[in-house]
């Protein structure tokens, strides 16, 4: 197995001792089949135990290990070293406050996610013995793409409107709202609209499209938001021109 020495410039920040973050460089003998996360684990295990970061599954399904790799929001477990040069810059995900080292404060996202009611709002309460909801494959196909979101926040790190506008609900939460709006078991679109169709919801989006480019699971939040804009516009004019309908 070939080894390659790679220099990692990692942004460090200790809230108890540091005024502001600064880069620290580590030289790591890397195996050719490694991903970025393997190298970071090597740093923590062998070089500097104080390095703090989030990770879990190491297979791109938990969404924990998002970070900026050479300026690009990436899952560190999904980014192979063979695709990178001999010097790699690693920073915590953009557009979130830094808690410590590569760990960000996610509270803003958690609050905004909760506000879009990311769960099935059923038409009626079905007792368990009435059995399960039934869906055709076509009904599943309607929303399946948007179920793939792992809340990794790469889309938030890529989105300039989230960077510049404090209130913006953001691509991930809006994609999840869309997932539930499209689900045939759900009737919560009206309830979600107070947040989704507000100025801080879909209307803050200017379709930059960076979110969909960085999404590791092809959720396409940009597409979800544009579809919601069209649906919201139709709803708006229906309510305006035919107020007797509901």
């Amino acid at each position, binding site marked *: 197995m070939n080894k390659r020495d790679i220099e990692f410039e990692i942004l460090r920040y200790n809230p108890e001792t540091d005024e502001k973050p600064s880069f620290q460089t580590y030289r790591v003998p890397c195996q050719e089949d490694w991903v970025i996360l393997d190298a970071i684990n090597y740093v923590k295990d062998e070089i500097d135990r104080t390095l703090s970061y989030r990770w879990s599954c190491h297979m791109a399904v938990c969404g924990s290990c998002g970070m900026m790799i050479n300026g690009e929001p990436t899952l560190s477990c999904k980014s192979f070293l063979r695709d990178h040069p001999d010097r790699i810059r690693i920073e915590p995900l953009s557009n979130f406050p830094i808690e410590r080292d590569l760990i960000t404060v996610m509270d803003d996202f958690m609050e905004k996610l909760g506000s879009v009611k990311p769960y099935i709002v059923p038409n009626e309460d079905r007792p368990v013995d009435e059995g399960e909801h039934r869906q055709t494959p076509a009904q599943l196909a309607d929303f399946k793409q948007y179920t793939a979101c792992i809340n990794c926040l790469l889309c938030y790190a890529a989105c300039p409107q989230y960077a510049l506008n404090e209130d913006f609900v953001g691509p991930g939460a809006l994609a999840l709202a869309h997932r539930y709006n499209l689900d045939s078991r759900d009737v919560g679109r009206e309830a979600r609209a107070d947040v989704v169709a507000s100025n801080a919801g879909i209307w803050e989006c200017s379709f930059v*499209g960076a979110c969909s480019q960085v999404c590791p699971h092809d959720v396409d939040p940009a*597409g979800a938001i*544009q*579809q919601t804009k069209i649906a919201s516009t139709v709803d708006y004019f229906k309510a305006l021109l035919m107020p007797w309908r509901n």
Partner: protein
Amino acid sequence: MSRRPYVREVSRSWWWLNQRRYVGYMIRELSCVFIGAYTAVIVVSLMRLSQGQAAYEGFLDALWGPVGLAFHIVAFVFALYHTTTWFNVTPKAMPLRLGERRVPGGAIIGAHYAGWLAVSAVVLFLAGD
């Protein structure tokens, strides 16, 4: 243990210089300036038309002079960029499903270009005669 989260500042005006995809986005957005300016030229042409033949022909001279030509070349490039970027995102904004499968994005985009060619051909035909 005390928490002291650090907020990284982003330049409100120049954030878009940091990545190529953002620069592409800004160029797309700025295409609207030229589309707006060209449409303003159309409005001026209507004004001159209403002011009589002499005024209108004076306008045509300016339109086809060097400055006018330069403006139209730039406007044309930006208009084409608007067309391409607009068509490219249409499948995302309006996905079509047939049964269980999605209509491929390429088909939707291709249909738009076909329509664009048809519209252009009609206009060119009407102008030619």
